[in-house]
């Protein structure tokens, strides 16, 4: 007798969902305080940012490229937002709009230079990472913007669902849904995927591949800017060190979320919910290992091993991926 299981059960996302549940149960039983209200709230807040930076990386990996300037864009736009709100006294909503605009502009630079020069985005964004971060440091003199409106910073401390969850997590889910809709149901989304999957074929079918690649980088810049806004809300100030030196600290979680989620490094396939689950899994494992008193240096070690292992599995999986399943 052949039993036909739902298609979802065969997907990478289902495996990830199972892993998230298994790890959550494991840490609940073996650690002290994992399921405490304080810890779950803290975890939800970290996860919301990891999801956003994962999505920001995902939309560039769709093109077969990389965005190493993710953290630099996030911190630069966050500092720009701090300057708008504190020094220029621009209200919150227009400031957020300007931050997103700045993010898309920095992303546009990445995309434009990449497609016009033909140099791999790895090199281009490696250079712009230093340029953006350096320029930000020079312009701000590495000074923080700490007198931001309370209405803005209070969002980072808000608690919902009996104070177990940060609303930032729901916002990240919402952005994930918007991206899913974009890639699954809109013409532009399908063009973005087609350009990433097979640039030559896409070009022959009338899609401007270069323009699509620039759009992807702009979208990545906007998502990185949103992550910058969320970190600023969380910290309560715009400071130059929110993503570490040059923004490096965002790279490992960004790659982990994307690759674990099932997005192909060669481009042409995005897994929005996979990336969200990947980010959740990374946050969960990091938090659980810290609670287990595994030294934080070992946490980095484990995350590196997970990334390497996943990339190797991804290489094997690439042979078997059906190209017609481009969004899941």
């Amino acid at each position, binding site marked *: 007798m052949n039993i036909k299981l739902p298609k979802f059960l065969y997907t990478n996302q289902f495996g990830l969902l199972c892993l998230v549940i298994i790890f959550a149960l494991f840490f609940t039983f073996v650690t002290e305080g994992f399921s405490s209200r304080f810890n779950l709230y803290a975890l939800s807040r970290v996860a919301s940012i990891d999801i956003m930076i994962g999505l920001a990386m995902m939309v560039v990996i769709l093109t077969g490229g990389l965005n190493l300037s993710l953290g630099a864009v996030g911190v630069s736009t966050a500092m720009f937002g701090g300057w708008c709100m504190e020094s220029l006294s621009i209200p919150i909503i227009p400031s957020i709009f300007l931050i997103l605009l700045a993010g898309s502009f920095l992303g546009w630079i990445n995309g434009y230079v990449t497609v016009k020069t033909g140099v791999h985005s790895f090199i281009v964004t490696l250079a712009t990472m230093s340029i953006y971060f350096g320029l930000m440091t020079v312009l701000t003199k*590495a000074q923080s913007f700490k007198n931001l409106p309370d209405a803005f*910073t209070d969002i980072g401390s808000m608690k919902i669902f009996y104070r177990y969850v940060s609303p930032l997590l729901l916002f990240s889910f919402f952005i994930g849904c918007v991206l899913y809709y974009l890639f699954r149901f809109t013409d532009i989304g399908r063009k973005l995927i087609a350009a990433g999957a097979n640039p030559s074929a896409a070009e022959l079918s009338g899609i401007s591949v270069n323009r699509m690649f620039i759009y992807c980088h702009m979208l990545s810049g906007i998502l990185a800017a949103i992550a910058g806004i969320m970190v600023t809300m969380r910290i*309560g100030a715009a*400071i130059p*060190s*929110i993503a570490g030196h040059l923004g490096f*600290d965002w790279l490992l979680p960004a790659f982990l979320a994307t690759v674990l989620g099932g997005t192909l490094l060669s481009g042409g396939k995005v897994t929005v919910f996979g990336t969200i689950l990947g980010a959740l899994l990374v946050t969960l494992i990091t938090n659980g290992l810290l*609670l287990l008193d595994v030294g934080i*240096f070992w946490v980095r070690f484990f995350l590196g091993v997970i990334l390497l292992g996943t990339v190797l599995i991804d290489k094997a999986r690439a042979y078997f991926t059906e190209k017609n399943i481009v969004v899941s």
Partner: protein
Amino acid sequence: MRIFIFLISTLLLFSSNLYAGSSDTKVALVPGGPHPYFAAWEQAGLDAVKDFGLGKADYRVPAEWDLSQQNELIESLVGKGYNAVLVFPGDSVGTNKILGELEDAGIPTGALAGCVEQPTKTRFCFGTDTGHSAYLGTKELIKALGGKGKIAHFTGFLVDPNTTLRIKAVEQAVAEAGGGVEIIQVIADIDAYEPADEKINAFMAAQGSEVDGIVTTAWVPAVVSAQALTNLGDKRIKMVGIDHDEVVLKAIKDGFVHGTMLQNPYGQGYIGSYIMDKIRTGCSFKSDAPWKSTSQTDQFIDSGTVFVDITDVDTYVMAMRKISLEILETFDSKYLDC
């Protein structure tokens, strides 16, 4: 380093009146990142548990100097049940939010070895008056130079809230020298071995013949500078360092370094843990407590600093012990309402 911690802890153990504290106080001591300066906090926490009857006083280090990692570490420690947090701020502004959230959750917090900027809900800042220490060290250097000469200043991370204070303090001491002394170079952001080694040795190669004195106000630059002067065999350049690394102490004994400004990391961890337990058991700070003010906070407690040179380098442990005991013995009466 370990000998220093062992000696200080042994001396404090046998000298202090032991205090029976609350057994459910669990203190987390969290530096901004990995750095040899904070290593003494580990033993300090263990001794505080033993001497004051605390439940726990554990030293936990973020993998990097990164605010997000420090925040995540603090949150996970609180999730584990730590109910008092002593932290070297990863950022003097950015750390405020999480400490405020902990205070709102009923978990007392204190800034250790570096302050957060006010307004803050953090109860106190207990550390070296870094500006004063840098000022005194520079004064000692100027004295050794006979009141004239060209000096260089090597200091720590720009994200370290103390760095700006140190730079200003050195400038102030030089300004007070009456024009005889000139700062020809300030090199910051070198409190790690690779950049310190590269930049200090490059400076020595390029301007070593022009400089008469060096003042260092961070651990690694002090070690690298002392090593560089020792390797060069240069006793012409006078140097005043900071902290008690073996390399610096040996260079003082050998005559390559004029002296060093000692800080008190062990005392910070030990007495800091004591203070947290007192706060958790119902004590509060007196309204007329003799707080000191810095540019960042007006609730500062000085953990002490002392200059040692070749005459007292062998007995420096006694000097730090004296300072720690003085603070501990009079702390309750000066600062606390219990």
